[in-house]
Every structure is written in C-alpha cells, then in structure tokens.
C-alpha cells in the first residue's frame, strides 16, 4: 500500500494566555517590577523555573492524529477559534507544535493569506516575482508561468504600475493568481476565497478544481463556506475546541457540524435574578435548540396573569441590524395558539432556515399586550441571543456559497411550454 503523504501523530499546541493578552511587554515594566519587589520577582522566577507558576495554559490543539494520502482534498471545518488556523500554521512550519510529530513527503506550499509579502511600492511585475519567491517558487518556475499568471489575473495593462495604485479587486486577483500557479505537492489553504468579487471567486474555485482533479495534488483547505467544501473535498475533518471530532466523508462531517447545537448557538440567555419583572410575564431562558436538523427558538418564562392579549415572541435582525421579522405565539389562527398556563411555560418555534441566508443573526425576545403596551419592547436591552447560521447550499451545483441579499431561497423555476 502506498505510504500516506502526511502523517500527523499526537500534535498539540499550547499557548500561555498571559503572553497572548499582553501583546508585547516593555522591558521597563519588567525592570520596575524587579526593583519594586525583588523578593516577589525571585519567587516568581523560581516558581517559573520549577514549573509551579499558575500561568494560564491554553491548548489550541490537543492530540490530533490523522493521515492524508496523495491526491486527497481534505476540508477542515469548525467554529472560529476551534484551532483550524493553528493546525495550518503548524503544518506550514510557521509555529512549531508543543507535542507530537508530523511527517510530510513532498514540497508544501501554504496560502494562509492572499498576497503575503506584496509590496505596495513595487509594480505588478515585480510583485509577481517577489510573492512567487516568498511562496517558495523558483525563479525559473516563475518565468515559465509568468504569462499565465498575468492572464489569469487579467491585469496586463497595469503590469508596470506599482500595486499601491491597484484597486482592491485587482490586488486580490493578482495575489491569488500567483498563488494558484504554485506547484507544490501539498497545498495548504486558509480561508482565502472569502475575498474578491463573486465572479473571481468562481474562477478560483474552478482553478482549484482543475488543480486537484487534473494534476492530482493534495490539498488541505479551511473554509466556512460549506458549499465550497462540499464541491472540492472528498474528506473533511471537524475541529472543535482544539480536538479532532470527526474525520470522514464530507457530507457526513458537514452534517454533523451543522446539526450540532453548540455550533449554531453563540449565546444563550438566562435571567439572572429579577430582571424584566412585570405583572404578566417574566422571561427565564431564551435559547436555540436543534431537533432532526431543524433549528428551534425556545422561550421559557413564568406567566403571572393569563390574558388573551399577551403575545410573546422574538424579533430577528440580520448582520446589518435590519429587522427581518417579528414572530409571536399568536401568529397562526387562534385555535392553533399554544395555551399559556399560570407558572412556568416553554414555547418553541421552528426557525425558517429555508429562507435564511448564511450569516449571524440577532434574536431579541419581545412581549406585549396586543396593541396596548410593550412588556418587553424590542431594541431596549431585552434578552438577546446570536446565532451563526451556515446554510447548506446543496441543491444546486452553481450555488456554492453565501449569496448576496438578506434572504437566500431555493426557488423552483420552470419553462413555459
């Protein structure tokens, strides 16, 4: 059997949080600390050397094991801060692991950012060479590919203009074009397709598909774009809190990722103490849950006075704070209303995910007496939660990523005979 091209054994990466938080330290502060309390400093240093100090440790990655075979395209998904980028940085040798070992057979090219090392003062032509060299291409290789790079980026006219005069679109096109023409055995890509206009993104995805399918290159690919992951990757791994949760066929892993409530909910609201005290309804909990792949909005609270006027629900806002809709338990015809009893009640409602686009949504709990008065008015420090919703665009092969617009609906089209 063929040897795996990448073997990862027990990789872990530890950070000391104190280091991270402070940014950089001024030598002056360290010195004044020593002068002020030399004994404390010595004690601290001694503890540090013996390893007894209470520095907060944070494992960005812990005990990661997997192998990748030649020609495989592996997707890496997970929430922000799960450790995906740390893994890529270790694989690209930017930062060493704290534990474990990685064995890689072949040249690695990594693209953690578009246009690394671009210098604004240099011209497009000069930057192609510089950036290519930084990405690990040989000069002869760059010369050979030069025309192709320029053509793909579509910047022939501005080749001898300093890139500081480029539009951001041109800049990104040129940068991606250089990167796309690298020929390493293994290509490591962080979320770089998120930039650039939609047209160019499509072109890039196409180019990447070409690279993998025709040239049999091995690719590791981090993205939040489930569509692109689904389109490109045979296998996908899910990383959560620094651990490898699942590694297998892309559909299954993406499904697991999206169905896990922890992955959807960014916040859960709970009433601490006596907030929103009133004579009708006191909210207790406001959270998201998932059941059989559907997302539900849950409202929990105490009914103190039953009245048919009481309406409880939520308002939902898109990322730019546009109100999308209000919804109350009284939305449907009266016979279908949930019956609210005195005391604790839990009501829930399905989130209409079929019309929502990918994105972060803000949900506010609202309650009122129908057309009389607000009990909990929207936009006034009311109970709020956020959900980070990733839509699976799996219906059409052309629809691979977040679409423009507040809504994203898969409409049916037919031809008139």
């Amino acid at each position, binding site marked *: 059997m063929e040897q795996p091209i990448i073997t990862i054994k027990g990789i872990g990466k530890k950070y000391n949080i104190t280091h991270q938080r402070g940014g950089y330290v001024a030598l002056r502060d360290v010195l004044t600390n020593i002068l002020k309390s030399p004994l404390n400093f010595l004690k601290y240093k001694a503890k540090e050397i013996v390893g007894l100090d209470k520095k907060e440790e944070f494992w960005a990655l812990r005990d990661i094991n997997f192998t990748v075979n030649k020609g495989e395209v592996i997707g890496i998904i997970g929430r922000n801060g799960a450790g995906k980028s740390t893994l890529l940085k270790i694989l690209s040798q930017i930062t060493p692991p704290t534990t474990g070992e990685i064995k890689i057979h072949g040249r690695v090219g990594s693209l953690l950012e578009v246009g690394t090392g671009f210098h604004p003062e*240099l011209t497009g032509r000069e930057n192609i060479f510089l950036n290519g060299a930084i990405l690990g291409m040989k000069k002869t290789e760059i010369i050979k590919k030069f025309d192709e790079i320029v053509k793909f980026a579509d910047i022939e006219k501005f080749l001898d203009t300093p890139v500081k005069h480029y539009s951001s679109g041109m800049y990104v096109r040129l940068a991606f074009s250089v990167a796309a023409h690298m020929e390493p055995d293994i290509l490591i890509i962080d979320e770089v397709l998120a930039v650039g206009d939609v047209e160019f993104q499509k072109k890039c995805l196409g180019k990447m598909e070409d690279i993998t399918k025709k040239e049999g290159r091995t690719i590791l690919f981090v993205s939040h774009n489930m569509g692109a992951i689904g389109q490109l990757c045979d296998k996908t791994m899910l990383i959560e809190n620094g651990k490898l949760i699942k590694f297998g066929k892309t559909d299954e892993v993406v499904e697991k990722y999206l169905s896990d409530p922890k992955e959807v909910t960014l916040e859960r609201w709970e009433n601490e103490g006596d907030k929103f005290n009133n004579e009708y309804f006191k909210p207790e909990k406001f959270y998201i849950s998932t059941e059989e792949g559907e997302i539900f909005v849950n409202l929990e609270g105490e009914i103190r006075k039953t009245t048919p006027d009481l309406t409880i629900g939520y308002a939902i806002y898109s990322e730019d704070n546009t109100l999308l809709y209000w919804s109350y338990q009284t939305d449907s015809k009266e016979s279908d209303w949930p019956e609210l009893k005195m005391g604790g009640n839990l009501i829930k409602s399905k989130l209409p995910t079929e019309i929502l686009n990918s994105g972060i949504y803000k949900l506010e709990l609202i309650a009122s007496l129908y057309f009389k008065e607000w009990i909990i008015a929207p936009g006034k420090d009311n109970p709020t939660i956020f959900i980070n919703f990733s839509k699976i665009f799996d219906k059409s092969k052309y629809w691979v990523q977040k679409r423009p617009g507040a809504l994203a609906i898969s409409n049916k089209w037919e031809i008139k005979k």
Partner: protein
Amino acid sequence: MKEYVTVIKPKKLFSFADLKEVWDYKELLYFFTWRDLKVRYKQTAIGVLWAVFQPFITMVVFSLFFGALLKVPSDGVPYPIFVYTGLLFWQFFSTALSDTSNVLIVNQAIITKVYFPRLLLPLSTVATKFIDFIVAAVILVGMMIYYGYTPNLIGLLIIPLLLLITFMASVGLGLFLASINVKYRDVRYVLPFFIQILLFVTPVIYPAGILGKYSWILALNPMMGVIQSARAALLGTTVLNWLLVSISLFATASILAIGIYTFKKTEHYFADII
C-alpha cells in the same frame, strides 16, 4: 525526482541542517535583498546616490569641525581621507545593525504567514547594506587617487577579512537585538542612542592611538580593530597589527555565536508573539 521529506517536531536548538536550509533558500535571499534595494529608492530623485551622499556629507562636516577647527590628530594622513575610511566601515556596521534589529518587526506580516528560514531576513538586510558600502567605497577610491595613496598587497587582501568581521559583528549583535525586540519593543528606542555612544568609543573620528597604552581595551570592540586595520592597510597609518585583527575576529565570532544562539532559541515563538 528529488524526494522531499519534512518532519515537524517541537523545535530543537541549532543544527547544521539549518545552514543547509539557508543555502536551499538562496533565491529567496536574493529576492529579499533585491526588494529592499528596489523599495528603498523608489520615489526618490537621486536614488542610489544617497548611499554616497550620506557618508560624503558626514565626512565634509567632520573634516570641517574635527579636522580643521578642532585639529583632531589623524595619524599623519589628511583628515578627510582618514575619517572617510572610518566612516565607510562604521556606516556599514551601524546601518546593518539597526536594520537587522528591526528586521523581524518590519517583516512580521510575512513571518506569521509563510515559512522560510528566518535567518534569511537579517542576512538580506546586511547584504543590502553591503551594496551601499560598495557604492560609497567609490568615493574612497577617488580620494585615494586624489591624495595619492596606493594600498599595499596585504592591504588589499585583508579588506575582505575586515568586511567579514564587520558582517559578523553586525549580524551577531543584530540577531541578538532582533530576538529581544520581538518581545521587548524597547530595543527600538535604545538602539539609536546605543549606536551613537558606540560611535564615540570607536576610533572613527580620532585615531586609536589617542588612548595610549590602554587602547587594547577598546580592541574588544570589533569595529575598532576593523577601522584601524583598514587605515593601516589602505593609508599606511600604522603597521598592521595582527594581534588586533585576531582579537577582533575572536570577539566577533563570540558575538555571532551568542547572536545565533539567542535567535534560534526565540525563533520558535516569533510567530506567536510578534
């Protein structure tokens, strides 16, 4: 086809594989140097002539104040050529040192995104300064012709050695400071001041002999040996003191060793805290 195998493990300290790696990346070293040279004189009217102007103007001012007005001794050679020889090496050293110390900060965008042997950055910085040195040396040649000095054969042969010492001293000290700079940005403020002090304890504007029998103490400062030997070799100010050259060489080798050691030790967390 060549088979590449990379093993990524928790980092160890210096190994000779590192040097080989620098060699493998020599093209990138070239591109970094090329970039620095290209970028430096973009949007300037006289471009690379700045490399000549700075030491030249400094020489004129120093000759006027120290040579003509203060009558600083110059080992029996005309003061302008005396001070210019010193300045030439001094500027190579001091500009290389200050740029090397900042090289990791300046290039942090690349360091956190792409892998390459980090040693390339200080090396390319010094290479850039070396080119400035060559350009500025044209003036020295002109002055030597003007004043009628011909270097002896040993003189010409020792110049590369002196350049090597200057190179090692600036890279060694630069690596050390660059490593500290990653964590403590104070370096940025201390350095210009430090370089200024260093100028005065190095015999650039005065001859080393001024200190009499204690001048050997200054020999621990490698640049003293370099500058004095350069003058001896090119202008015949004194007999070439091989002991002094050896002390300089030894001192710089130690500085370089300490510099590389510190650099390699901190290298693994550059990207995390820079």
